[in-house]
Each structure stands twice: as structure tokens, then as C-alpha cells.
């Protein structure tokens, strides 16, 4: 899409939305937000950027292919469930500790896993569809 306004604003919006998404993710335990919502905002950010600057530019802003993020997300979520087992408690029992004065716990890590998985899966679908939209096939 070739609109100057969208191209200009999307750069700011992209950054803002991503910040908002991380903000939502981290504050989710106490205030409205969380991994799922945060991931949706981030997907929105990338979808907007891809709309304004093209798919290739949006892909460049991503360190990993979206599907790989799904794998990492699931792994992170799984790992967050394990410490409890090592301590002899039932799987997924939350473990909390303080890091530089900030309260951190395995449920927060689990939420990061949720974030990565949802983000990766949805973005992979959107990128895939957008790519296909630029090469429309004959049959379908």
C-alpha cells in the first residue's frame, strides 16, 4: 500500500505497539493484560508494519521465523513447569523469587511462553497468507 501517512505513522505505531505489548505482558499478573493479549498486540503491530512497508521489511524486523518462535514458546512454557518437579512438588507449582527487587516467578515465565507461542502461530498465518496474496494461484 502506498500511502505516505500510513508509512510514516506506522513506524511510530509499530514501536509503540510493541512496547505496549511487552508492557501488557509484564504487568498482566496484577493489572489487565497477560501473555495472550500482549501477543495479539504484537501481531497487530507486525501486521500493520507489513501492510505499510511490505512483507520483506516486516520479516527483517523479526530475529527468527515465526514458526520457530512457536517452538521456543512451547519450550519456555514447558521449562517453567519443571522446577517444581525438581523440588518435589506437583508439576507447575509456582516458584517465586526476587531479582533486583522485582518479584519474578515461574508463572511469569510461563506467560512469556504463551506470548511467544501465540505470537508465532498467528504471525506465521498472517505472513503466510500475505505472501500467498502476492502470488495468487490459479486453482483456488
Amino acid at each position, binding site marked *: 500500500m502506498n500511502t505516505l501517512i500510513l508509512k510514516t505513522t506506522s513506524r511510530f505505531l509499530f514501536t509503540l505497539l510493541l512496547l505496549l505489548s511487552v508492557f*501488557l505482558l509484564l504487568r*498482566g*499478573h*496484577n*493489572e*489487565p*493484560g*497477560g*501473555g*495472550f*493479549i500482549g501477543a*495479539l*498486540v504484537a*501481531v*497487530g503491530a507486525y*501486521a500493520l508494519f507489513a501492510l505499510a512497508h511490505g512483507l520483506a521489511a516486516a520479516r527483517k524486523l523479526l530475529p527468527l521465523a*515465526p*514458526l520457530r518462535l*512457536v*517452538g521456543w*514458546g*512451547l519450550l519456555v*512454557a*514447558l521449562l517453567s*513447569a519443571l522446577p517444581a518437579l525438581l523440588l518435589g512438588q506437583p*508439576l*507447575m507449582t*509456582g516458584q*517465586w523469587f526476587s531479582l533486583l527487587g522485582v*518479584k519474578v*516467578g515461574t*508463572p*511469569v515465565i*510461563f*506467560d512469556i*511462553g*504463551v506470548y511467544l*507461542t*501465540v505470537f*508465532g*502461530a*498467528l504471525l*506465521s*498465518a*498472517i505472513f*503466510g*497468507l*500475505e*505472501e*500467498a*496474496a502476492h*502470488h*495468487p*494461484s*490459479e*486453482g*483456488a
Partner: protein
Amino acid sequence: MVVASIVAFLGALTAPWLHRWLGNVAGWVLALLPLGLAVYFASLLPSVVEGQTLRHSLAWVPSLGVNFSFYLDGLSLLFALLITGIGAFIVIYSGGYLKGHPDLGRFYLVILLFMASMLGLVLADNVVTLFVMWELTSITSYLLIGFNHSEFRSRRAATQALLVTAGGGLALLAGLILLALMGGSLEISELLGQGQLLREHPLYLPALILVLLGAFTKSAQFPFHFWLPNAMEAPTPVSAYLHSATMVKAGVYLLARLQPALGGSEAWSSALMVFGLATLLTGATLTFRHTDLKRLLAYSTVAALGALVFLIGLVPLTDYYAAMGFATFLLAHSLYKGGLFMAAGAVDHEAGTRDITQLGGLFRVMPLTGVAVVLAALSLAGLPPVLGFIGKEVLYVAALQAAPAWMVGLAVLGFAVGAMLALLLVVPFFRGQPPQEVHEGPPSLWLGPLVLAGLGLLLGFFPGLYNPLADAVASAVKGKAVAYHLKLWPGFNLALLLSLLTVLLGVGLYFLYPRLQAWMAQEPIPGPENTYVALLRGLMRLAAGAERLLQSGSLRAYLVWTFGGLVGLVGLALFRSGVLLWPAGASSPKLEQALLLALMLLGAIGALRLRSHLAMVVVLGIVGAGVALVFLLQNAPDLSITQFLVETLTAILIALVLLQIRDIGSVPRGRWLDKAVALGFGGLVTLLMLGVLAQPIELHLSQFFAQKSLPEGFGRNIVNVILVDFRGLDTFGEITVVGLAGLGVWALLQRRQRKERP
């Protein structure tokens, strides 16, 4: 024991790597795993023989009473020794038999995994552990039968074996759960003491039938016997191990294990005796149709399994002969049949054919295999001085004691066919000329048969060596202490006379065999396999019909089926439950709520009137955003944010999908069915909500989460704490589904693009 079981599984996993490093000697090295386990189990012999039982337990799901618990008594010890002992020779044998096969590493892996599962099965005390191991043997057996997976026949035989045994496995699961509910424990060792209670329970008969279904399918009892001969498509080491010595005996093992709990009723004894005898005769009769060594042995295995089941049925009716006969015949059969199968494979490997009419003069060129075959055949025929003779003698005594005369007669007939088969197997070694360039195979091919057949001879001469363990086995089957003196020469009695008759009949049948074989092999005999084929074909036809009806490929049709079905079923339930109520005390909406509703209504009506798909998506967004605003007005910010975001991304996704579809045109007019379904669904949800509101609201859970969220979950956002903590496992499942869906979309798009750019 727990450790032994884990070692078996872990050891199996190293097989492919060991094979890659060690090449041709891998078989000998890998055999150390079963051999080591065999030595371990042998070291437990003294304490088990003294009547001790060992029990080890590892908590698995303690809240449900599910444990990794293992139990060792005479019966499980005999099986464990057979599995590990014969397993060692099988692994060595596989190395020679499948030398140079590209998938040999995988073969080692699966056969050792099978061994570990089978070991777990016979040691398991908890019915859940037992069932898991039971299914694992079915699955590994499937992989082993279908090892030559490029052959259609192998794949078909493998599928057949899996469907029959796993189908029976489902029945077994139901039966075991019934037993556990009746006896109030999941541990078999605790159920064994409750025979009286179980037999008088009203659910006894259903439980019995289900357990028998599981055991009969696994152990190839009539009318499920057909899968076993077909499974001979497997490589010979598999036939020798799974389909003679171990897996097919799992059903027999289960029956023997549960005998003290389930046995003692009329139904138990008659079912086992009738089906066992029918299996014995079916196996014996079908022997006449074949000349292929492995098929002959397979039908003889079917017959022997029938004999074992028959014996278990006799156990409650005799004092100790049947239990003792079971203990002896079981070991004798495993030794001679395992040996014969391996020898048959060696002959096939060296001479290139398994057809007994083509083979001759083998003894001169394969003397070691020949000795093994002669010794094993003696056991098969039930002749002195080998263990098979003792086993059959005790069996006859037991049958004479408690079975009706006609049953004894039929059993003699069945065993006579065994004697005939023994002659059929031995003769090609002596009569005729050896084929050109046939010679003895490598040690890996003759060691197993020779040792197994030799053991049969040793124990025949010195039955006292086996006597203590046999007593322990018989005690476990009988459910109380048994002591019996095994003798090679029991003196002249009726059983000996029957043995003599058996052998004479067998020799007579041998001379009739060529004519009977020619006659029997002509016509296909209708059997239960036809039913299996018909059932499978019917299932396929049903699936094809359902696919045509439901999966037409039109998305609209899918939606109509999904939502139409939902409206129909939920509507029916709602109508019958009678909660179609107008909630009492419903307040009239405030101004802002009324305005919001009006906006949403406008959006919905607009969507109905629009002719462009894209515009429709946008207008429907008004409804979605309206819902989000409703959430906000009701103080649910979390839900509201989620709804807004989902609505936005859905619009993007649908728009992208719509871009894919060329020539989409405009939305057609009419489509009254679609409208009716949509209206029905909206109406249903409305009625449901009204019904919910009419009920008193149950706040128990909400209060629980509101109270526990901060002190136990350390979070003030209840929704989030529920998602990532209280219900974390659910969330984990959900994100897995999300991830898989993403993968699915990606795969679908990839496929399309590959089609475009070949």
C-alpha cells in the same frame, strides 16, 4: 525390579547407535542386555522358590491409585526368565539372520523395546501399568510384523494383528477397570485375594467376558486365531520370539495370573475349556492346509495356546495336576517352539525355501541345526526323554481327572497332529538329497535352537532342576501352595496309554498327510477371517459415505453442518431440561447500553444487506467492537481488550483469505438455509444465556479464585492468575493447539505454493 524394567527400556534405545558403531557383532553385544537381565532374574530364583513374593512400587498418579508397581512370584519369574533368556538368543540370531539389512539398527531397537514392554507386562502389579505394557507389546509387534514395510502382505498382516489385538486390548481395559472397581484396588496382588467377592459380584460376568476378549485376541484363541499365521510375514526372529515364545503368551499369562481371582466359577471353566479345545482343534486342522515350515509352526502354536487355555480352565477343577501341567507345558512349548522357529529360519536362510516338500537330506549339510530340530521335534511330539513328554503327561492326567471323556478324546486328536508335524519336520533332514551348495549357517543361527532344544532334553532327564520353580508357578496359578514331584517316568497309567495312542495316531496321520493336504489346500475354507475382512470393508464404505456427506469441500456446507448440528443437539437438550425461563428481576437497560445495542443491531442488519464480502467483514466488526464495549461497561477490561484485539486480527486474517479467492463475486441473494441456521444459532445462544441467568448464580469458584489469587498465586489479576497458574496445564494444552494450528496453516500454504512452482 523397577530398575530392571527401566534398564530394559533405556538399553533398547542405545541399540541403533551400538549397531552403527559395532556393525556385524552388534547382535552379540546387544544380547548382553537380555542376558544380564536374565542373570538378575535368575538370582531372584532362590527366594521366589521359597514362596516369597517381591513387590516394588513407584508412585505415578497416587491420587488415582495408579502406580508403577511390580510384583514377582513364580509365574512372573518364569515368564521373565523366558523373555530375557530366549530374548538373548533371538538378538544374537537376528544379527546373523538379518545380516546386512539396511534397517537392522531399527530392528534391534524395536525388538528390544518389545522385550522391555513384555517384561513390564509380566511384572506389572497395577492394572494400569499392565495395560500400558500390554498395548506397547501390540504396537511393537505391529512394527515388527510390518518390518518389511515395502511389501503389501506385511503391511496387511501387521494391520490385522494390530486391529485384532488392540481391539481386544480395549475390551481388556474395560474389564480391568471393572475388576478394579469391584475389588476396590488397582493392584492385582490385592485383587487376587478377593476371588469370593469378585465371583459373587453382579458385574462378574461382564468383567469376565471383557477380560477373556482381551486375552483371547492376544493369544490367538478361536475365533481370533487367524491373525497369528498371517503374522508369519514377519522376519523369522520375530516369529520365533513374539509369535511363539512370548507375546502370544501374554493372554495366557493374564488368564493364569487372574485365575485365583476369576477362576472357580462355572462360566470361567467352561469358557476356557471350550474355547481352548476349539483353538487346539482349529490349529490342528488347519495344519493340513500348508507345506510352508513357518505356517505349519504357526498353526501348531495356535494349537498349543489352545491347550494352555484349556489347562487354565481345568485348574479349579483338579487338585494340582492342571496347574502343574500348565507350568511344565508352558516352558516345554516355549523352548521347543522357539528353537523350531529359529531352525526353520536357518534352513530358509541357507536353502532358500521353507517348503517341506522341496527340502531333503539336510542333516548331512546342517548337522547342528539338525540335532536341534530332532530334539525339539521330540518335545513337540511329546516323546520321552524330553520336557514336552512330561508336560503332555501331566496335562493328560489333569484332563482325565476333570474333563469329560469327549474332551479328552479331542485333546488326544489335537496332540496327534502335533506328533505328525514333528515327523514332517524331521523327515526332510534325513530323506532325499541335499540341495546344492547348502551348508551350516554361522554360529549365530544355530546357537539359539541348539541351546533351547538342549535345555528341553536336560530338563527332561532331570525334571528335578525345574521342579522347585514349577511348584512356584503352579502355586501362583492355583492360588495356594502346590508341591508335586515331576518325574520323567511316572509308571504305567492311563495317561501313558493315551500318549501311546497319540503317537500312533500321529504316525498314521503322517502317512495320510499328502492326500489330506492336497484335498484341504484346494478350497478356501470360510473362517472368522472373512468376518474381519467384511467388517473392515464395511467400515471403509461407511467412512467414504460419511466423507461424501460431511466433507464435501465447501466451507459453507461445513458451517451449516457444524452450527446446524449444534443448534439441533443443544436445542434439544435445552428443551428437555426445561430451563427456558425469563430471568426474574431483569432490569431494563440503561441509556448507554441501549444505544450500544442499537449500534450492534445496525451492524448486523447492514451485514445482511451488503453484497461485497470485504465490506461485510468490516461491518461485522461493528458487532464485535460493540461486544467489547459491553464487556468494558460491565467492568471486565481483560475480556474487553482481548475481544478488541481478536476482532481486529480476525478482520485482517479474513481479509487476507478473501484476497486469495479469485472470482469471488458478490454475496448471493437468497440462501435461506444459511440464514435459518444463523438465526437459529443466535437464538440458541440467547436462550442459553437467559436460562443461565434464570438460575441462581454459583459464586463458589469465583470466590475461591478471588480469595486465593493474591496469597497463593501472587497476582491481583484473577483472570491471568487462573490462566498461568491455577489452570496452567489447560493453558499449556491450549497454546500447544494454537502452535499446531499455526503449523497446519503454514503447511497448507506451503503445499499450495509448491503446486504453483513445481
